[in-house]
């Protein structure tokens, strides 16, 4: 099953951030009270001039405020992706948002500083009307703080707040006069907002607390559980990358799920994610180079051998010289007088004649042995030693002889045992040779039988090893049958030992249990021991090796087919397909010998750094339709849509213009088809249904706000909360318009609420 797989090499992280260059045309651009539009959302902040097509600034909505004495004496505050430029900044990265609502206005202040600075404002106040997005049904506190910041800190003349997805709707529809149902999916939330009677009807809108980060978190958790020993840390950025590139919404989740890991789908749907991996150290020499190296090694060995031989030769010559000298001394005995002979002996360090004889015979032996070895002559069998005293009765011997006899008896026994062993060994060798010959004969004459036998033997060996392994596994479990039998045996033995040595009874013999009378009795100790099996394992391992060698020699296909079968079995398992996709299984102990070339080694290492996305590809985005998957106790997208439409008095006209936007689920491919299909299921038959996505789900909110403030001048003027409004009505005050939230003046509770 070596199918072509889709491999995606995932980058480490985003490209390094470049310091952003500020604009210097603030005065020109802002002439005549041109609004400054800020799409202030938790993921990405966009800001620019309402007269322009696209936002000037687009940056990640994060802030880092900290000190780093190495870089700067004063405090440092970074905004946008530059927070990743300094490792020190990492721990102080903050967002202005909690969920989809601005809660931290210190961070917000930094973001606004950044926006106004980058747009090139060098005046002493911000003299442009601000158009800014806010969360659907923003808490009053948040709006109040935002207005306070804008009016008090930046002295802005006016601000207009609106809902991002409503403005995105405007950008794509061109008007609020058309009814529609907006599905705005952001980083942490997804809103369903009906639009009719020329405005966003937030009183009927609903929020599912799920967005793009929910998918990232879910995918990360899934992958951590799927690959608990993965050598890399998967970052949030990478999770986001995977979601954008590989997830999709299934049109019919259950149907697609049921066959996702099936053979015919797997190769197409499984995606291999390759993480950066270290290159293994490889033997990169060519065939020729390897040959040369072995040649060199052989030559070196030869040289060493020659040198050793030369040294040995020298030694022999030395000894021979010595021998010559000694014999010369002996020969000179007759020619010299006693005195000078004695002196000559003393010169050579020898005491007397006997000593001399001994030295000569020693030297002779050494020289002849060495010469024999050099010539390759086996040392001939020594004469059978005699033990004359061994069989003589003690009575006929003196004390000294008795002692000698004892020694000889021992020596004799040892000698005889050695001889017996040698004979045994020879016999065994003959037997083995005979067996091998028979085997060989059988192979030549009855090959099929022989092969079947060999396979049978191999299977038996494997079965034996497997059995032992299973037994060992069972022993590890204290409650298994094998463990309990073992414990009982130990207990029995201990009980017997405990009673046996209590003196009198043993003498009387009424407790004698005949243990040890039969050889098998001793096996009990082998049974209760846990360690003995290593030796047997080794033997079987060697045997298996032998069988494999023969098989690969005479029936090479057989082992391959075994491996194929073993692999096939692994590869067909659901869990294997789930974690490894359609990659070829790596066998722990392949039957056929394998040689890994460099390419295969690299592939092996690469595989350890691979993830497989399959079920996750549809499982992750599915959470918006089934929040129960992540344990969120809210209705899914479809059910919520149904509820919202019902609340509006079942305006099924909304379903003819379902509009999807935002950076969350709106971006996932297949969501339009799924929604169309699902909505068809809940709407009355024949209802016209249309589902579409914003031309640019990310930027259209900003573009919509910009266009709306320029084109709908009347509405825009009416929507501006002025400084006077702020001072008169308080920070939470809102002037409603087509894309805005609702405002209602509320009175403070006189009595504290019941707790």
């Amino acid at each position, binding site marked *: 099953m070596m199918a072509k797989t889709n491999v995606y090499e995932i980058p480490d992280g985003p490209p390094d951030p470049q310091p952003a260059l*500020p604009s210097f045309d603030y005065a020109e651009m802002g002439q005549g009270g041109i609004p400054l539009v800020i799409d202030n959302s938790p993921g990405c902040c966009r800001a620019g001039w309402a007269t322009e097509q696209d936002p000037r600034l687009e940056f990640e909505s994060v802030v880092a405020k900290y000190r780093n004495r190495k870089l700067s004496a004063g405090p440092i505050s970074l905004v946008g992706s530059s927070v990743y430029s300094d490792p020190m900044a990492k721990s102080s990265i903050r967002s202005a948002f*909690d969920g989809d609502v601005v*809660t931290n206005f210190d961070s917000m202040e930094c973001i606004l500083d950044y926006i106004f*600075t980058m747009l090139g404002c*060098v005046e002493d106040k911000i003299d442009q009307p601000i158009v800014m997005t806010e*969360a659907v049904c923003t808490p009053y506190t948040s709006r109040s703080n935002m207005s306070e910041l804008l009016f008090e800190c930046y002295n802005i003349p006016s601000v207009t707040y609106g809902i991002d997805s409503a403005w995105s709707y405007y950008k794509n529809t061109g008007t609020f006069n058309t009814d529609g149902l907006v599905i705005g999916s952001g980083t942490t939330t997804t809103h369903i907002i009906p639009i009719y009677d020329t405005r966003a009807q937030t009183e009927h809108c609903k929020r599912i607390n799920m967005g793009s980060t929910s998918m990232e978190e879910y995918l990360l958790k899934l992958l951590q559980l799927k690959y*608990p020993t993965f050598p890399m840390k998967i970052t949030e950025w990478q999770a986001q990358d995977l979601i954008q590139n590989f997830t999709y919404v299934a049109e019919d989740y259950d149907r697609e799920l049921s066959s996702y*890991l099936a053979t015919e789908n797997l190769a197409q749907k499984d995606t291999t994610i390759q993480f950066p991996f270290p290159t293994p150290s490889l033997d990169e020499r060519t065939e020729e180079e390897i040959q040369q190296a072995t040649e060199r090694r052989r030559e070196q060995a030869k040289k060493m051998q020659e040198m050793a031989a030369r040294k040995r030769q020298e030694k022999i010559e030395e000894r021979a010289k010595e021998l010559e000298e000694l014999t010369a001394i002996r020969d000179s005995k007759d020619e010299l007088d006693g005195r000078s002979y004695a002196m000559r002996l003393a010169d050579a360090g020898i005491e007397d004649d006997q000593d001399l004889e001994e030295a000569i015979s020693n030297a002779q032996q050494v020289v002849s042995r060495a010469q024999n070895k050099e010539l390759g002559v086996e040392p001939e069998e020594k004469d059978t030693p005699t033990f004359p005293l061994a069989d003589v009765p003690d009575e006929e011997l003196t004390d000294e002889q008795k002692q000698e006899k004892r020694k000889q008896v021992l020596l004799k026994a040892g000698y005889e045992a050695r001889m017996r062993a040698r004979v045994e060994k020879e016999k065994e060798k003959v037997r083995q040779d005979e067996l091998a010959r028979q085997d060989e004969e059988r192979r030549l004459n009855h090959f099929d039988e022989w092969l079947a036998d060999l396979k049978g033997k191999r299977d038996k060996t494997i079965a034996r090893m497997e059995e032992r392994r299973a037994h060992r596994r069972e022993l590890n479990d204290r409650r298994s049958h094998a463990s309990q039998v073992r414990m009982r045996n130990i207990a029995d033995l201990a009980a017997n030992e405990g009673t046996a040595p209590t003196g009198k009874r043993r003498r009387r013999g009424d407790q004698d249990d005949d243990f040890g009378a039969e050889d098998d009795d001793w096996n009990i100790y082998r049974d209760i021991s846990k360690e003995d099996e290593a030796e047997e394992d080794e033997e079987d391992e060697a045997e298996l090796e032998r069988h494999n060698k023969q098989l690969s020699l005479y029936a090479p296909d057989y082992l391959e087919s075994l491996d194929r079968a073993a692999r096939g079995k692994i590869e067909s398992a659901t869990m294997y397909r789930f974690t490894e996709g359609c990659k070829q299984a790596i066998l722990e102990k392949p039957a056929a010998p394998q040689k890994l070339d460099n390419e295969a080694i690299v592939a092996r290492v690469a595989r350890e750094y691979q993830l497989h996305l399959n079920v996750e590809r549809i499982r992750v985005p599915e959470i918006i339709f089934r929040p129960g998957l992540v344990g969120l106790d809210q209705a*899914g997208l479809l059910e919520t849509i149904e509820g919202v439409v019902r609340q509006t008095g079942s305006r099924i006209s909304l379903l003819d213009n379902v509009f999807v936007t935002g950076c969350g689920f709106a971006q996932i491919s297949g969501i339009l088809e799924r929604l169309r299909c699902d909505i068809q299921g809940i709407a009355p038959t024949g209802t016209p249904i249309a589902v579409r996505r914003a031309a640019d789900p990310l930027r259209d909110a900003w573009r919509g706000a910009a266009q709306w403030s320029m084109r709908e001048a009347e509405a825009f003027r009416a929507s501006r909360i002025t400084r006077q409004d702020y001072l008169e009505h308080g920070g939470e005050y809102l002037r409603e318009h087509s894309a805005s939230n609702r405002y209602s003046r509320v009175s403070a509770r006189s009595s504290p609420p019941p707790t």
Partner: protein
Amino acid sequence: MPVNRRGKKSRPGSAVDTPVQQDPREGEPLANFKTTGITNLCNVAKPFKNSEYKSGRRWKNLKQVVAQEQAASNWPVDFPAYWAIDAPPSLLPQKKYCDITGLSAKYTDPKTNVRYHSAEVYQVIRTLPPGAEQQYLALRNASVTLK
């Protein structure tokens, strides 16, 4: 110990933990950053800011803000407030999916409460290290937490 405007000791780790407030109008003029670009915002003069303005507040998180706001005022019944627009719980029967593979789950392991797809997946559950089944349950917010 840094002391903030109101003379209280600032709490370590709080979001307001900017030790020294500098006048935002001071700093190098923007023109100096024409070619280098802006990294540290503190280096740039921000003349548009009101140097008098300092919030110096400790910011509540969303949950606190919402709870406080909900309790503090008399909200009209049909007013779309932040807490009022949460999608209600589902009334539909929930289909069960395998906690390990995500495939449809016909069975539930009575010992661990983990839902599983087939006997093969069950073998995996049986060999899970202790505690791992809680991680699987945590995926759908069903883990048992001991307090």
